[in-house]
């Protein structure tokens, strides 16, 4: 390997899961064709879903899932202390993802619907992205996290360079694939303000972009709502669609 880009030693990496469906972890194991190559570059020292081992410190910690209970908060602080680089993996960890939808209803109501009068038995918090609690160094978006993006970030980190963060919307990748726009099929799609990096996989398979990767910086949400309502959604439906994966708001709204 080149003297200019070679890592000195194999980085020790670990995977942790919080409130999530664990689809991102699974997606990693779905790297079948690459798994062994990946393992050439790193030592996996902790990965509860696949192994018994535990470790004290990590060069790179990948975090899956949202923070949604007091014990999650404690655990993520602990991981942050042990990790040199912390990467949030997948929508739940990066934006709160679908979990944050529960934040839309008053948290007491949600708990009551779930646990009735025993709601206080199960401490719960609004679902939060990891970055709401600790510093996150890199983010891999998507529900599930996109494998190509994981590989880009992984390779960059192993090479000791910063991964490039995508900041353009899904439409760009959709156009690069010369897809017929779903709006031209009478459908609606959140591609125009959703962060790219998924290779426009949903529109390419005829399904609308659900916004799972989070919004582009400075997304013009009002213009997006106009587009959705111009294409047949009621304002309420349009707002709901926008919130599917993007319900998390900054903490002060939860007072």
């Amino acid at each position, binding site marked *: 390997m080149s003297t200019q880009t070679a890592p000195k030693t194999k980085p020790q990496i670990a995977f942790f*899961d*919080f*409130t*999530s*469906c*664990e*689809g*991102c*972890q*699974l*997606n990693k*194991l*779905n790297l*079948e*064709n690459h*798994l*062994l190559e990946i*393992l050439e570059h790193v030592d*996996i020292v902790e*990965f*509860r*879903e*696949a*192994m*018994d*081992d535990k470790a004290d410190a990590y060069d790179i910690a990948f975090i899956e899932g949202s923070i*949604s*209970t007091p*014990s*999650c908060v404690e655990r993520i602080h602990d991981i942050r202390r042990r990790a040199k680089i912390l990467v949030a993996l997948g929508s739940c960890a990066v934006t709160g*993802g*679908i*979990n944050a*939808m*529960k934040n839309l*209803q008053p948290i007491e109501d*949600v708990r009551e*619907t*779930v*646990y*009735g*009068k*025993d709601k206080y*038995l*199960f*401490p*719960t918090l609004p679902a939060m992205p990891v970055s709401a609690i600790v510093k996150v160094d890199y983010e891999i978006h998507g*529900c*599930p996290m996109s494998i190509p993006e994981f590989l880009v970030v992984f390779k960059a980190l192993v090479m000791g360079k910063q991964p490039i963060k995508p900041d353009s919307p899904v439409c760009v990748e959709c156009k690069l694939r010369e897809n017929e726009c779903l709006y031209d099929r009478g459908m609606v799609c959140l591609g125009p303000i959703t962060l790219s990096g998924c290779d426009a*996989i*949903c529109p*390419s*398979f*005829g*399904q609308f972009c*659900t916004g799972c990767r989070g919004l582009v910086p400075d997304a013009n949400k009002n213009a997006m709502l106009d587009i959705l309502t111009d294409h047949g959604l009621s304002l309420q*439906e349009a707002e*709901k*669609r926008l919130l*599917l994966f993007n319900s998390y708001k900054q903490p002060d709204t939860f007072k």
Partner: protein
Amino acid sequence: MSKNLDINVHHLTRVEGHGNIVINMKEGRLEKAELQIVEAPRYFEALLKGRSFHEAAIITSRICGICALGHQIASLKATEDALGLEVSEQTILLRKLLVNGATLQSNVLHVYFLVAPDLLNAPSVFPLIPTHKNVILRALRMKRLANDIGDIVSGRAVHPITPVPGGFTHIPTAGELKELRRRLIEEGLPDVVETVKTIKSLAGRIPDFVRETEYISLQDKNEYALYDGEIFSSDTGATAVRNYRDITSEFVVAHSTSKHARHARSSYMVGALARWNNNHNQLTEISLNAAEEMGLKPDCYNPYLNNVAQVVECAHCVEDSIAIIDRLLELGLKNEKPNQTPTKYGVGIGSTEVPRGILFHEYEYDRKGNIVFANCIIPTGQNLANIDDDMKKLVPEIIDKPKKDITKQLEMLVRAYDPCISCSVHLLNVKFINDSED
């Protein structure tokens, strides 16, 4: 003999989701033997409220990344039932193909990556890479093949894209299916045969433990039921899916954020072993031969052999996928649009078999096509009581072994069920008995 034993496995590894095993024995009396479910609750039924039928399956697929397809299928079936949406034969065939792919994927992952390390005394699959490279490569190849079914038919294997109420947003090409068929025959079948050999060679290490219980699965007159059918209990026989609550009659226990279920006895089992016990005579010859080779016989009461039943199903899924593709090619693939024009509104129930067992979704829709009520009953939730009952019987039987071995055997027991814990944690509207999160 009076003995004290305290086991607390915090966040059991190599299972999906967060669970603890807690065993408490005081002077030979077993005070506690339970699998505590400490996964953070996710409130899915609440999230579904007010959502349109276009979004229901997108949301429920996120209940679980491992059984995403199963949740999607159950969700779509519930929505179609509620809204009166008919689907075509092509849609059903493509869905069945997807179910086969997902089952194959999940069973391979579980048997090779999560269970095999136990049988080989390794902490994970990673140390086995240098020593068992060919086996690992085979496992990866089988997983890839299974995932490719998902990628080609549904856009991606985790959180599938194309299945929507009424059909598919994208239809694979005949060329893609032919290529899949070729690989199923040239890679899939030989790999299954090799897998059977590998498991056979390890079968001696599978603990010998027997506890008869009630076995519940779907049953279909025409085929080994994975996609559809009636509910069938080994104790009480057939029940219509719409009466699923009679079967699952859920209840809440203190040590679990997931509710338990019981039917004719204190607990019942769902999953590969239940399907095997109930429907084995509908399996193809290759699968039956595989079972025989590995020593799996009908009416098997050893829960550890659930993993062997999973391997039998791998054989079935490969064979059945080939047959489905043949049928699809014979029909000729049509670029159908999904049928999304509701003919009614109201309550709908969808059920399907996922790798871990029978799964139910029930939705009620208002006249705008938005959900007013949702309920999802997940296999692992149904298995939890059975796991506790197994542990209660198992611990006294092995109490003389060193604690380390007891712990390991208990962990293996839980893993044998392939519990999908994050999946099992959904909200429920029932009373709690006591206790709080760990």
